[in-house]
Structure formats: C-alpha cells, structure tokens
C-alpha cells in the first residue's frame, strides 16, 4: 500500500452512528455514540456535533458511562482495548489492553473497577463462540495498562450488545442466546438456565433477541423474534419461575430498555413505533409512532428525562419525556443501496443520493451534515418486512439546477414492473421543487441511465431502458399545445439491442448510447445516427466524452477488461488498454477523467487525460470491493497547488462510495494546511451560572471570598451586621408577654434592618464624590489610562497582605459594599 505524502484518503459522510447503543450523560447535555473508529459527542439540545474521542484503531463496539465517575466513559473496540475518557474535554485518560477483540461492554455500580466484556472464546478463535468475562482494571499511573486477568463469567453468549443486562444492584447478570436465558448470581456464583421450546409449529419464533433487567425489582424482560415480550420473575431457582407475556409488536423486538426508576419499559422494533409499557399496569401502554425507520437501540438518560432511539437509517432521535421528538441526529442515510448515482445539485452544491425510502437526501459536503430529505414518491412507507414499495432509482439535475428528473420503480417479483418518471421544476417563487410532469410507464422495462443535455439552449432528457429503446424528452415550447410540459421527442433503438449507458458531450451536441458491444453516436438536433463504434468483445459498461481540449475523445469501458478511447474526428480507435474499469467519471471543470478499476477484490484509481499516455495520478488498492459510485464536486475556492501529483484536485474534489457505503474523498496537504492556518483554538472560559439562585448565591459567595482575600481587616466590613442580629436576638429571646405591641416592634425591627443600607449610602455618596474627582482626573489625563484595568489584576503583588490597599482594590471594595446583600448575609449568619 502506497501512502502518498501529499494526497490522503479521508472519510467523509459520517460513519454509522446507529451501530451501538448511544449513551446520554448524567446532566443530559451530551449524547455519546460509537461512530466507526471514534466516539462522537453530540449536544442533546442542538443536535450539533461537539467533538469526538479519537484513539481507537478499529471499530468501536461499545460505550458506557463510568459508574464511579459521571464525567468519564469507557469505550471498547475490536482493536482489543478498553479506553477511559473524559468526554467533556475529549481527553484520553487511560488505555487498558485486553488483547482480544471486544464485542460489547457492561458495567455495574456494584462492581467498581471491573468491566464485563464479551470476547471470543480463547480456544475457538475461528468459531463464532463468545464468552462474557470480568476484567479487573488495574490501578496504575501509566497511560497504557495491560489488563490480562480475565475471569470467565458466562460461556457461550451472544455477541449482540443487547443480549446481556445487569440486574438489580448488580446482583445478577442475565444473558440470552437462541432459545435460552441464563441468569448468573454473583453472590452465589451460580447460574440458572431457562429455555423455551422452539415453538415452530404455530409459526411462532420464540428465539430471544434482547434482554433488560428491572433496576429495582427482580424482574427480567426479554424480547422475542415473534414480537412478544416476556417478563420473568422468581427466577432465582430452577423450577418455580414464572413469566407473563406482553404482545404488541408484529415483528421482532429489537431492543428493550427499563427507565431508571423501573416504572416503564420501552421497546422498539421494525414498526418504528416506540412502545412505552407501564410496569405496574401491564395492559396499559403508550405509543410514539412514525419515528421514520426501524428502531435498533433505545437508551434513557440517567435521570429519565430524555430517551433516545437509534434507527436503521443511521439516525438517532432524542425524545423528551416520551412525547415529543426534540432533536434528530442524522448521519448519511445508508439504505439498502444507492441506485441513483452520486449527483451534485448545482443549486445548493449538495450531494444528492438515495435517502430514506422513497426520498432523495441532500447532503452538505462542506459541513458533513445531512441537509434534508426530499420526498419524491409521496406515499406512506409501510414499515414491514417483505413488502415491495416504490423506490427512487434514478435522479438527474440539469446544468443549472432548474430541473430535477426522478425515476421511481416498484420491483415486484414475477409481476408487472411499475415505473414513473417525474420531472420537477425548481420554482423560485416558492423556493421549492414543483412537480411538472409525471410520465407513467415511460419505458416497458427498467431504465438503465438518465441524463439531461448539458447544452444551455434546449432542456432535453434522455432515458435508456432495457426494452431496447432510448427516449429523448423535450420541454414543449411555445408553439406546442401543451406548453411548459415535457413530452417525448424521439424514440431510438439500434437493432433491438439493449442500451446500457449513455452520455452527452460537454456542449450537448452529441449523444452516445452504448448498445451492448456497439456505441452509437447521435446528433440530438436532428436525431440522425452519425456513426457507430464497436470494439468487441465485451458489452459497453460506461461511456464518457472528454471535456475542454479533449472533447474529441469518447471513452468507453467494456465488461471484458477493455478501456477504449475513440477519436470522434476520425471515428477510429485512438488507444485501448486492458483494464477492468467499473466506473468512469469526468471532472466537469477540467479534462481529467477518473477510472476506478476493480482488481483482485480491491479497487484502483487512475486519473488521466485522454490525450496523454501517462496517468496524472494512480492509487492502488484504494479500498476493498468495487467502487460503484463516484462524483467530482466542484470546489468553492480553487486550490493553487503547483505540484504535479495534486493538480487534478485543484478545481474539484473526488468523492466515492465504497461497497460498505463509506463516503471517501481525497484531500491534499495544501488544503489541510489552509484549513489549519485558518483556524485557531478558542479557549473561552465557560463558567456559566446554572440557575438564577446559583447566580445570586454564587455571586455572593464569590464576593465574600474576594473580601476575605482582599481585606486585611474583615471586621470593618461587617460592622453593620451585629446590629441587625442583636435586634433580632432581642426580639426572639424576650418573653412574649414583656414585648410591646407588634406595631411598635415592627417599625423598630425594620429600622434595625435598614441601618446597614443607610451606612452604605453614606459611603456611596462619599464614593460618588471620589468617582467624579476621578473622572475629572481622567479627562485631564487625556482620556487615556488604559492600563488601569491591568494594574487592577496585577497590582503590586509584593504589597499583598499589607494593610495598604491599591487604589483599584479600594474601589472594588467600595463597589462590593454598595451592593446590598445584607438581608441575605444576615440570614446566612443566623
């Protein structure tokens, strides 16, 4: 593997944030979730990404709060380490090296200094057997500590993190696998196994999917594949255990979670409904429906005020007190597949691809954040397995972003294919796309490619389909009756061959359509077949025209390891090389063409100009698997890199999507330097007053502290206080029958309280006079004594503690005194 110093491949488009259960911190301000090789910290109120905890070298497989310190978290990873973090400042505190890949982590308050990990069984490294082990984390000052003392707790457990749970006060741990529930009691060091019948005869699937234990009572809730939830009780013996069944879900129960007080049980599944069972009244339940996608995990904040649910579409929803969705943290939606290519919206410069089912997602590449989903199909999506529903399979923007064409399709096995072609116009008045024309069944078979003509004069769309035709759609102009709508202009074919791809030349004057082995070149103006080019064997997989100075070239990639370049002026083959090109992508702003080749399980990238024999850039073994989608995104600002190797990245940036749906891109050193140079760390003290009461008390305390520090004779400050307290004492200690009437006393009492302020007023007046004098001084000095403040903070340290005070300190003092806190201080003193 060659890693170039200048060009680096970097991850974009967020990793999977729904991989493991998220964690809400004690103060409910942050949400932590495993995201690829790091742990991301989000703000629960703004759904904004705050920072990440970086350090793991493999997939992070679990995050839990440290039960002994609520400002720390443990994270475990497949790289065989457990790391302890301070999440507020993103500091790695300690690394514990375990030595085995870890699949999940559990902690309990009862077991301080011990973490429970799921690791593969030592003896069966290759097999899929896992065990739950307890690890004593050694106390040591080092950053990296080896913790190899593993003591097995349970053998043969599931690696799924929801399949084990600590019971009441950490007394037992419950784990499920297959049809068995195992409960291990730490005190007795004994485990009980309960198994269910497979129950296959009635179509019921009894297998366990998840488990959660009640935090206060001896009760275990288990979820099952058939949608049932069983509540196990009395399980500290082999025989007389009982269970009751709750049933609402029609699909498998994906996750279960008790609220911290145990009053409620939350469950979720594919129905994308959060079900909220009342623990004491089991027939009562609340629902929070339409959460968008199947629920995979549920987490509750330690105070029970916030719930969060992870969803299968790479989303975390934060729910406030079970009724209101307050925030949605959305990563790049990773659906079943990307059928549309990666497209750049010319208007918003966002990346467009398949999003939620039936939607197109707009993803901002600059901010690495999803912007929104555009509802194309506009039909209710039914969250159930095994249904065929409409999906957006193709999308295209015209050159200026005024038109969006989408193809939606319902793939049914063994039934008629349903296809709709929709053309959306961007309406500037309403700032939204407006449906202009719907074409039902535009073709009789699947549409293989769809492109807008890049020429500015005509708005033309070309679709190619497996039915052996390609169609050109034109926006009807003023002469036509159906003005302003789209209509078919031309249907073309070539010897009943199936067209697989098409491409417009940069100016829109030529259209090339690949009919299996044959490339046909048409003139869109007259729809004349200009020429045919062919280079058998192998069907044409991808076609593209050269740009700018290379516009005379047409490149085609064939299935039989051939990359051909034809010269359109001579209609002859210019060159060809044996390459298994899976994807050709042209840079709209330069002559460069990127070709992704798949070779022995991994992909290579070549960037070249059609006119030059040597590639500009090549990178072997880019990633494993085939690269299916790529796009050049134009840069906002051109880079000015003179280096030959990085020049191709100056105008636009290449993004590509791997088989595992990771969005990757290339970044150059100059770009990173620029980013680094433009930014600096802002260190701002965030000592924020939390409540108004704290504001009041805290200020007072702070001032008292200041006083104690600053004053050599604190008694001078407190002179007025004893008076007030004497009056109160008198009032409280004299027997009631000797006291004068209340009306008489009241005035006296109030006056006693007022004394302090009157004395303060005297001082204030005095001070004001001084202030005026000072002001005059300042004016006479020529309005400049800017160092006054500095002298206040630094002022004469050698004199500190001496009775003599600096002028500034004195003034500070007076100001403190003018502020009337006497009522509060008298209360405090009493």
């Amino acid at each position, binding site marked *: 593997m060659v890693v170039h110093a200048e060009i*680096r*491949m*970097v*991850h*974009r488009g967020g990793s999977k944030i729904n991989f493991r259960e998220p964690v809400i911190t004690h103060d409910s301000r942050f949400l932590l979730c495993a995201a*690829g090789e790091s742990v991301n910290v989000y703000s629960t109120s*703004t759904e*904004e*990404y705050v*920072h990440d905890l970086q350090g793991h070298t493999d997939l992070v497989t679990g995050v839990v709060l440290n039960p002994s310190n609520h400002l720390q978290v443990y994270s475990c990873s497949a790289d065989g380490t457990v790391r302890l973090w301070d999440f507020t400042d993103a500091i790695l505190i300690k690394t514990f090296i375990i030595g085995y890949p870890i699949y999940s982590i559990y902690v309990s308050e009862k077991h301080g200094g011990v973490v429970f990990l799921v690791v593969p069984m030592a003896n069966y490294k290759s097999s899929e057997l896992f065990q739950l082990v307890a690890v004593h984390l050694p106390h040591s000052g080092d950053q990296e500590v080896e913790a190899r003392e593993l003591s097995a707790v349970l053998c043969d457990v599931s690696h799924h993190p929801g399949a084990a749970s600590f019971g009441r006060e950490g007394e037992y741990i419950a784990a499920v696998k297959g049809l068995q529930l195992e409960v291990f009691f730490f005190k007795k060091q004994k485990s009980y196994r309960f198994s269910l019948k497979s129950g296959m005869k009635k179509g019921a699937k009894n297998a366990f999917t998840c488990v959660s234990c009640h935090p206060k009572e001896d009760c275990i809730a288990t979820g099952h594949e058939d949608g049932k939830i069983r509540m196990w009780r009395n399980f500290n013996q082999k025989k007389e255990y009982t269970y009751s069944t709750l049933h609402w879900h029609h699909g498998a129960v994906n996750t279960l979670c008790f609220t911290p007080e145990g009053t409620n049980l939350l469950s979720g599944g594919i129905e994308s409904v959060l079900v909220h069972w009342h623990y004491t009244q089991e027939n009562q339940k609340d629902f929070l429906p339409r959460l968008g996608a199947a629920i995979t995990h549920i987490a509750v904040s330690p105070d029970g005020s916030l719930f969060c649910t992870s969803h299968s579409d790479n989303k975390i929803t934060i729910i406030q007190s079970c009724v209101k969705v307050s925030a*949605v943290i*959305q990563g790049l939606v990773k659906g079943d597949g990307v059928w549309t290519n990666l497209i750049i919206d010319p208007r918003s410069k966002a990346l467009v691809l398949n999003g939620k089912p039936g939607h197109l997602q707009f993803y901002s590449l600059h901010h690495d954040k999803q*912007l*929104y*989903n*555009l*509802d194309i199909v*506009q039909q209710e999506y039914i969250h159930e397995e095994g249904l065929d529903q409409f999906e957006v399979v193709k999308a295209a923007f015209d050159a200026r972003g005024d038109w969006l064409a989408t193809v939606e399709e319902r793939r049914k096995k063994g039934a*008629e294919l349903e296809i709709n072609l929709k053309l959306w116009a961007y309406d500037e*008045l*309403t*700032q939204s796309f*407006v*449906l202009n*024309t*719907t*074409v*039902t069944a*535009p073709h009789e078979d699947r549409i293989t490619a769809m492109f807008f003509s890049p020429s500015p004069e005509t708005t033309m769309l070309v679709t190619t389909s497996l039915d052996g035709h390609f*169609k050109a759609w034109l926006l009807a102009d003023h002469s036509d009756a159906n003005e302003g709508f*789209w*209509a078919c*202009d031309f*249907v073309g074919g070539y010897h009943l061959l199936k067209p697989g791809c098409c491409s417009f030349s940069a100016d829109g004057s030529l259209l090339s359509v690949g009919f299996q082995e044959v490339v046909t070149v048409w003139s869109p103006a007259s729809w004349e077949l200009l020429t045919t080019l062919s280079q058998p064997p192998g069907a044409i997989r991808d076609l593209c025209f050269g740009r700018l100075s290379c516009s005379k070239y047409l490149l085609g990639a064939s299935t039989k390891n051939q990359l051909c370049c034809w010269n359109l002026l001579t209609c002859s083959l210019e060159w060809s090389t044996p390459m298994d090109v899976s994807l050709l992508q042209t840079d709209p702003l330069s002559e460069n063409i990127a070709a992704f080749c798949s070779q022995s399980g991994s992909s290579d990238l070549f960037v070249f100009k059609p006119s030059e024999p040597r590639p500009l850039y090549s990178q072997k073994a880019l*990633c494993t698997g085939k690269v299916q989608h790529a796009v050049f995104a134009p840069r*906002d600002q051109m880079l000015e890199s003179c280096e030959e190797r990085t020049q191709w990245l100056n105008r636009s940036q290449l993004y590509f999507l791997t088989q595992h749906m*990771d969005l990757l*891109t290339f*970044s150059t050193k100059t770009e*990173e330097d620029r*980013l*680094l140079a*433009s*930014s600096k760390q*802002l*260190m*701002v*003290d*965030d000592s*924020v*007053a939390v409540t*108004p009461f704290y504001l009041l008390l805290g200020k007072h305390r702070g001032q008292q502290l200041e006083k104690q520090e600053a004053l050599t004779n604190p008694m001078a400050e407190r002179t007025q206080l004893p008076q007030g307290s004497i009056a109160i004492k008198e009032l409280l200690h004299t027997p009631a029958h000797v006291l004068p009437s209340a009306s008489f006393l009241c005035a006296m009492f109030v006056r006693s309280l007022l004394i302090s302020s009157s004395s303060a007023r005297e001082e204030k007046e005095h001070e004001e006079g001084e202030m005026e004098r000072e002001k005059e001084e300042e004016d006479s000095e020529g*309005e*400049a*004594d*800017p*160092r006054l*403040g*500095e002298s206040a*903070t630094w002022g004469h340290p050698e004199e500190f503690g001496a009775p003599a005070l600096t002028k500034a300190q004195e003034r500070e003092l007076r100001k403190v005194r003018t502020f009337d806190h006497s009522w509060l201080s008298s209360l405090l003193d009493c």
Partner: protein
Amino acid sequence: MAADGGSFSLGLPCVFSPKSRQYLALCAQDGRLRIWNTDIKTLNQEYVPSAHLSATCTCISWGPCRKAKEGPQRKKRKSEAGQVENQVDLLALGTAAGSVIIYSTVKGALHCTLDASHSGVVNCVQWHPEDCLLYSGSDDTHIVEWDLQTGKARCKWKADRAPVTSLCVSPDGKLLLSAGHTIKMWDLETKDVYRKFTGHSTAVTTLRFATTRPPDSNGLYFLSGAAHDRLLSVWQVREDGKDKNSVVSFNLTDEPHHIDLFTSNSKEEALRLAVVCKDGQLHLFEHFLNGPCKKPLSPLCTVQMTGVEDSPIPVPLLAAALTTDTHSLLLAYGNHLQPVMERVEVNTAERHVCLTRDVHTTLSLTMETTVSKVKTPVVNAKSKVVVPGLPGHQAPVKGALGSEKRKSTDAKEMSIEERLGKIEMSSEKGVKGAPSLQTDNFAVLLVQGLESKDANILNKVFQTRKDMLIKKTVARVPLPAVLPLVEEITKRMQGHPYTAVLMVRWLKAVLMQHTSYLASLPDLVFQLGVLYHMIESRVKMFHKLTKLHGKLYLLMTQVVTSGNEVKDVDHTAKLVYEEESSDEDNASGDEGLPDEDSDNWEEDETMEDKAEEGMRMESKVTADSDIEPGNESEEE
C-alpha cells in the same frame, strides 16, 4: 453630532456566520435570538436570554471559527476522518443592560456572561481575529477588552466623550477602530490613539476595514456608515498622517443596515461591497481603492424584492452576503421573526434587479422541516400526467421514414385523388337520393359541431349507441369533415374510458367508411400516429386482461357451483333461475367486487375488442398507404 447617543436606531442585529455563511443569527423584536440555517433554510435554534425583555440584545458578533482539537501531529492513518470545514460556535451578544453574553451554538446554551464593566448599553462587540479577546463599546463612553480565557475584563479605557457606537478590529488584529464623537484608530498593543478621523455628523453605525494592508503603506482603507446618512464613506490611513476627509463615498438610497464586503488584498483586487439599506434595498459596489475620488459612486447593481400579490408590496431585504463566486449572493429577506434565506444568482450587468418571491408560502414551508428534516416538493393540479397512449408519451410520428417513398409515388397519388373525387361525387349523389330525416339531422349536426367546435352538439351526437345510426351518420359526413371528425374522436378517446367506449364505435364506422379517403391523405401517418400509439398501448394489456378475466370467470363459476351443491340438490328446476341472482350476490360477497365493476369488465372488454379491431384496420391502412398503395384499387 453624535450627542444623541442612545436614541439612534441600529435596526435589529442580523449577522451571517463567517466563512461558509452557514447560519444567520438574528435578534428579533421579541428579544429572542434565533439562529437560522442557510443551507436548509430552517430555524436551527432559538435562545431566550434570561432578561430578554429588559436587557434586549443590541448587537451580535460571531466568534472566529472553532478549530477541531488536534493533538501534537498525530500519525495519520490511511483513512482517517477528514477535517471538515471548521464549525462556528460562539456568539457574543451585547445587551442593553451593559453585559455581554457569550452563547454557544453547538451546545445550544449560554457559555458565559461578561458583566460588571459597562454601565450603559453595549453598542458593539467585536472579536479579536487571533487571540481570545473580545472588545465591547458602550454608551458609557468606554471600551472594554475582555480576556475570554478568564472571563474578566482585561482592560478598560475611556474612548470618547460621546457613546461608543461602533468598533472594528483590523484583520491583522493590531488596530481597533472606534466611533464616538470622532472615529479613532487605536493601537491595540499600547492602547494609544493612532489616528483620528472626523466627518460624520450623526452616530456612526458601521465601521469596516476594506483592505488588509499594513497601515504605513498608504494602502489601508476602511469604511464607515452613519445613521440618517445616505453615504458610505471610505477613509484612507495615510502614511503621513494627513488624513482629513474621506477619500471615496458610495451613494445609497437610505442609511446602511447591513454591510458585507470582500476586502481587497492588493491594488489589483477590487473591493466588493454589498450594502442593505434601511428601505430594504440591496446595493452592490465594486471599486478599486486607489486614492481619492471626488464624486460619490453609484451602485453597480441594485436588488429589490417584491411579493407575488396583485399589487406588489416590496419585501424588505434584511442582510446580504457575498460569495467567492461574483454572481451569486446569499440573501435574507422577509421579517425578522421568520426570515427567508436564499442563494441567488444576480446578473450584475443589469443595474436594477427585481426579484419576485412568494414569501407567505415559503414561510409556511420552512417551519415544518425543522425536526423531521423532510421536505415535500409541491405537487399540485397544474402538473401534467402522461400515461401511455397520450400524446407526449411516444415520439410524435413524423413520417420521416416514409417521406422518400411518398415522393416516388407522387405520380400515382394524382390518380387516387381523381378516384376519390369520383367517390365523393357518387356518395353525394347517394345522400341526395335517399334522405333519411334522422340521420341527415345527425350528420348535419355533427358537421356543425365540428365546425363550431361546440361541445354540446358534439356530446349529443356522440352519445348515440346505435350502430346503424352511427354508420349512416358517418357515411353522410362530407369528406372535408372526416379529418376533423377523426381528430375529435382521437381527442375524446384520450379522455375517460367510458367516452372511449362510445368513441370506438364511431372510429370503427369512420375507418370502415372512409378508409380510402384517409389513405389518400399525404400526412396520414402523422394524423393517425397518436391514435395508433394509443390503441397499441391500450391493447398491450389486453392479453393479460383476458387471461385474468378467464381465471376470474372460472373461479366465480366454481364458487357458484360449490355453493349450490351445499345448498340443495333436489330443486333442480329452480336452480336455473337462482343461479343468476346468486351469481351476482356471491360475486359481490366473496370477491369484494361491486356489481358495477363486473359490468365494467364487459364494457372494457368490448372497448378493447373494438380498439383492437380498429388497430388492426388502421395498421392495415398504414401498410397500404406506405408500402403498397396500389392494392387499394384492387380492394375497391
């Protein structure tokens, strides 16, 4: 003079976030701070300062971009998370009570408050571009330098006799401009006055550095705008210190409210300036700063915005931001409570640009998407649906292929016309010979209807179901009316299936009667192409439909017979009678098909049947006309 201190109106603070302009921070009339996302055009967050009604927010300033925390040059792995463009985070708010609030947009919470230094309204806050410093100017005539690491005032000095209304830190962080009675330039290291500039008679509301050059190079310029002043002045900081008056001024239509500029880094680079005035207009300027210029410069382009109402009401622009691309602008418009953000392409070649925007519907759209993040594009009745068979679904048949052949048969065509002429004559004779009152009436009506395109008459005529009547009527239609009739029939067939059923009879009659005439038309392919496509697409499913029909029929009869068997076997005579009624009952009960539907099947079938017939005939016609025009005579 700037003595009127607190009374000048700055307008409501409204600031775009730096660099990528991702957010717009806006403090509306209700005292709440709202941050809008300009990418999605939705409300990102709302913050209510604890004393938002008494201590209203007077000024906003975005902090410099936050840096992603980076350790000491970590070893870079192959595919590490890429550095995303830096996120903006902190926002400084000056309040009328004299405190400065620092708000974190990432956490969505108050970050810290800086207070107890100003006794008057804070008029302006400015961040230091490099260090963790913040400057605030207040009505109490002082400027305070805050150290944000400690959250305390580091330095406070009296700047002027009048309230400090505006501040600006130079891009290199060494100089500070303040405006009170006069504009003063301070050296931030020594806190000494570096230069003084006088000229504005009202409170200066805006100060911005226009260039990034050092002060002693004669190339440092800044601009200032004042309340009630329709000029924006540019000042030069000259080497010799003889800077008395402004060197350039820009003409505006009202006092400036929001200014965005691209500083020029060299003499060759023009200063780009976007000024939003109080009257809601946006002025764009481009100017090469190079010494004085006597006349006030007029804008390169003025942008206004109106609503879509009948009497266009101007929509005020709130803020505008320039982008690196010279043609595109980021605009915020509407009202402060619900502004609309948009990136627009403005043709700067035109001096005056007026944009029309539907503010009301746009506003209603922006609020929905905040949580769900789903935008629903507009689907209204105006959109067109093209189904197979309608024109536009298939390419119009242009007869391009047959054109050459037709040319070659030109000579023969003459003879056909002659022949047709004869036919016409004979048919006319026939009409005269035996006039049937009713049919004649219909034919006349039809011709009238076709000529006047009167839908009522045509509807009346086309409602007929009697085959004989149709046949006779069509036979009596004069030849010139045949083509309009075919067109009318085609149009009606594209509509509802019920009308199509009626039309099929007519089409059949027309084709039977007038094939020879139609075949003689030169542009026959074009005329009948639409009809042909429609018939083809409708018949496409016919095979499957018949299959389905057959299966259903089989199923129904099975159901009926099985039901009867259970009932009784004895009453053989009555069974025949009951069969029909129970047939219908069972059908509606078991299959959930309403009775009408089963009727429809029949009709559909007949329609399709007819259509197929029509198609067959029609295709024959095409074949005739195209390939073997000679056959026709034989047929006749």
